[in-house]
């Protein structure tokens, strides 16, 4: 299940929904991304997330489908927030359920790497010294490339 939303989410509730009434799941790996108060500049007091409605959901679905093709998964829950967020706020959650931990770990890692390089989201950071659009990172591109060789 994929959601792009402004509202906050609760990791416990989401994970429970993923495993409810299931006894075939042996592992759930859940990654949560939070807003930091420092990034390109110190003293980030907020960030705004823009996306491309329609394309965003489609891109996220493509990423999840690819993960389901590569690993044996029992369920995936992906939530990405948009709008204005403040340091400490959860921004993204990827929960992956599988029979075995290795599949869950790797698929979760893969989904985040692809999300950061392929899903149309853009962050603007608001700091005490002004606001600016966050630049893409070479490390994110390198991280995503790891999955192309295999």
């Amino acid at each position, binding site marked *: 299940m994929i959601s792009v939303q*402004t*509202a906050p989410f609760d990791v416990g509730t989401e994970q429970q929904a993923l495993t409810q009434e299931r006894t075939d799941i042996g592992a759930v790996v859940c990654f949560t991304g939070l807003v930091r108060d420092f990034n390109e500049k110190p003293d980030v007091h907020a960030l705004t997330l823009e996306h491309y409605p329609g394309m965003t959901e*489609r891109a996220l679905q493509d990423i999840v489908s690819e993960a389901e093709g590569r690993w044996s998964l029992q369920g995936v829950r992906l939530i990405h927030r948009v*709008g204005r967020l403040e340091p400490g706020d959860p921004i993204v959650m990827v929960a992956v359920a599988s029979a075995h931990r290795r599949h869950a770990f790797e698929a979760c890692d893969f989904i985040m790497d692809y*999300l950061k390089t392929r899903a149309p989201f853009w962050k603007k950071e608001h700091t005490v010294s002004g606001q600016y*659009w966050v630049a893409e990172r070479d490390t994110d591109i390198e991280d995503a490339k790891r999955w192309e060789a295999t």
Partner: protein
Amino acid sequence: MSLTHLNSRGEAHMVDVGDKAETRREATACGRIHMRPDTLALLAEGGLPKGDVLATARIAAIQAAKRTHELIPLCHALALSKVEVGFELDTPNACVDVTATCRLTGRTGVEMEALTAVSVACLTLYDMCKAVDKDMRIDGICLLAKTGGKSGDYRRGRVTDLESTQAAASPMEPPVGAATHHEMPMITGESPEGHISIAPRNEQPCIQVKFLAELRERLGISDVDIPFESLTSPTVAGLKQALEAYDERFSLLGERRVLCAVNQVMSADDMSLTDGDEVAFFPPVTGG
């Protein structure tokens, strides 16, 4: 002073504007919808059953401004060059303040368009929230300012029943201070301040072009329709050339880091286009 929409016999008629000089016209109107504090809280956090309320109301206001002539009998159809819609969520007073600015270079004023935009934005807010609150009340719809044209500039004085920042702020500026909600760019074709530029509408087949995030802010344009026939070749590369011919600012699109999606799928310069396609240009993504 006489009513220009009545002729010498007192009958309604449309004013002949053919001989008027074209000038840059701009008008700003405002309005307000009151609701229960818990309704406003739901609206702020996006928890209403019909979804993203402000983005929907903004689109409705823009559409309404463009169709004013279909609603108000003696209004001319105008090719607006810009419609700007701002929302301010006023928690202490449990209301949403709406402002709309319309602009064009032409022979008639655009105050009816601005007033229509505000009215329809308020009505849309009502529609989007009515499932949880039927006591909402719309009021305070008025013209704040207009510039250009023979009748000269107009600026509304301080109005007693509009004691909020809206009336106190410079009327030509979108209301400031509600950064939280101005900076909720949830929908394509909208900059944080709610500016939307619209190319002159024409009947011919067009490519709908969108600019997102940082690219939109650098260009100062969010949307433009490009006639399909102006493309040198029916591809993304041809579209870039047509855009650059239209305005040299679009040479920015030649930068290597600018990405492109055709009908919401990532595409390269050689991707072929047909009329009605939606093409978006944007910088590298930075989510997660």
